[in-house]
């Protein structure tokens, strides 16, 4: 039996098409994924991401445990700051990617992928031992993502919080539509936007209020379908699809979060060696020269030799072109490299392109 978020009834009332994702019954789309994608790029869209896991670490050694288990440097975090980071195994393989927020002097909150939440919690408990209090708060919290160039204008109508002063990857605690909320300037769509963390019972009224504000800006509720094409256009890897325990964050193009000089951490030895020698394969962006959908598992060819494998692909709703992410050998990873994607036995010409495929235009206030 799939789990349901606190907003399940709201999704059903909106006529959502529901699918099972990572053990959760989630909205795939409401009216149509392409329309919802466009709303997020042009105005704003509201997602229920309450399926994601929240793991809290507390205590004098909470920072040390985070520092040891994640690849980024949590010492950089002031209270209210967050950072994108990765949980690696001893071999440097990706267990999960996440955002860690420092909520208090000795209090950290990890927002992790739904599919990995239980395994992450077990891994962290095991590693933390008696050093920190580790609490799985996934069931007691709701999480909304309001994304798009007009997200701030929409949210402003519901809160006295200084949203204009809220920098990317920072969070504020306050009241939104009368609901106690942690608001962060984060998301996974390539747009400006916010994520709103509340107690699970408060999630339905918060959703209703934020959805109304979203609609006042001609925005839409948006489902997992739009979420996937948005993150793919933004060149953001999806854990479990574009990276897993067999790939390292360096191979996935996440070298910018791997702080090898911060001291020891799980996976560091392998990652340091890989950084020194150079990675053998890299996650790259692909753009096809003609229509065709590159799909997970499809082979990538260059000059008659197999050089890699596609991990994600779609027709870009914004660009109209067919794009994908693939691991290819380092020699074939330079932008501009002509390659081919094998689709049902046919090699469709493509080229390696720099990520992201889509970059938002930053608007002047």
């Amino acid at each position, binding site marked *: 039996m799939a789990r349901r978020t606190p907003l399940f009834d709201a999704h059903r009332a909106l006529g959502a*098409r529901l699918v099972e994702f990572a053990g959760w019954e989630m909205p*795939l*789309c409401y009216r*149509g*994924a*392409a329309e919802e994608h466009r709303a997020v790029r042009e105005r704003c869209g509201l997602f229920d991401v309450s399926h994601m896991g929240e793991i809290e670490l507390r205590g004098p050694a909470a920072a040390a445990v985070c520092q040891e288990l994640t690849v980024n440097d949590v010492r950089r975090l002031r209270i209210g700051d967050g950072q994108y980071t990765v949980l690696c195994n001893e071999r440097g393989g990706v267990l999960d990617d996440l955002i860690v927020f420092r909520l208090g002097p000795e209090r950290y909150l990890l927002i992790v992928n739904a599919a990995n939440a239980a395994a992450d919690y077990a891994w962290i408990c095991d590693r933390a031992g008696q050093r920190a209090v580790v609490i799985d708060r996934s069931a007691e919290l709701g999480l909304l993502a309001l994304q798009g160039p007009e997200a701030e204008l929409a949210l402003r109508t519901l809160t006295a919080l200084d949203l204009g002063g809220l920098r990317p990857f920072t969070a504020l605690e306050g009241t939104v539509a009368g609901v106690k909320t942690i608001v962060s300037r984060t998301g996974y769509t390539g747009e400006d936007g916010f994520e709103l963390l509340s107690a699970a019972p408060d999630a339905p009224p918060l959703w209703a209020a934020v959805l109304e504000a979203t609609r006042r800006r001609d925005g839409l509720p948006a489902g997992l*379908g739009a979420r*996937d*094409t948005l993150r793919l256009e933004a060149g953001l890897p999806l854990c479990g699809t574009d990276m897993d325990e067999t790939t390292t964050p360096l191979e996935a193009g996440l070298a910018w979060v791997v702080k090898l000089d911060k001291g020891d951490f799980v996976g560091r030895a392998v990652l340091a060696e890989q950084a020194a020698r150079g990675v053998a394969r890299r996650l790259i962006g692909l753009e096809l020269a003609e*229509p*065709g*959908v590159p*799909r997970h598992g499809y082979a990538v060819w260059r000059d008659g030799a197999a050089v890699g494998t596609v991990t994600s692909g*779609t*027709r870009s709703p914004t660009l*109209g072109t*067919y794009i994908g992410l693939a691991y290819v050998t380092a020699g074939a990873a330079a932008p501009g490299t002509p390659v081919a994607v094998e689709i*049902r036995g046919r090699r469709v010409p493509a080229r390696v392109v720099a990520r992201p495929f889509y970059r938002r235009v930053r608007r002047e206030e």
Partner: protein
Amino acid sequence: MELPDDLRYTKEHEWLRLEGDDGVVGITDFAQDALGDVVFVELPAVGATFAQGQVFGVVESNKTVSDLFAPVSGRVIAVNQVLRDEPEHVNADPYGAGWMIRLAVARRDEVDALLDAAGYRAHIAREQGK
């Protein structure tokens, strides 16, 4: 869900509109709705011939890749080239701008044996009841 009375249908969710000796083929409103946003349609070359039930192309959404089956035997005399760059017509107008191929129908009795709208509606109800 729209199921025009003047069309014939297959259990695989294609429709066929008989126009003289030609059969125009696409996928049904039910099929496009089940697929979600169509992102790619692969169609055969003009001149290709297919036996009834043979795969003549592929339709893809982000979710799935589905084969397209020839409702009847025939030779392809036209394909909807617009779908190459604008596959979204399959969702927006499955019986009109979203048409896929035009066949020179080889055997009229195959057309007569296809489902009518009522038969197709009953077929969908049975499939959904499973």
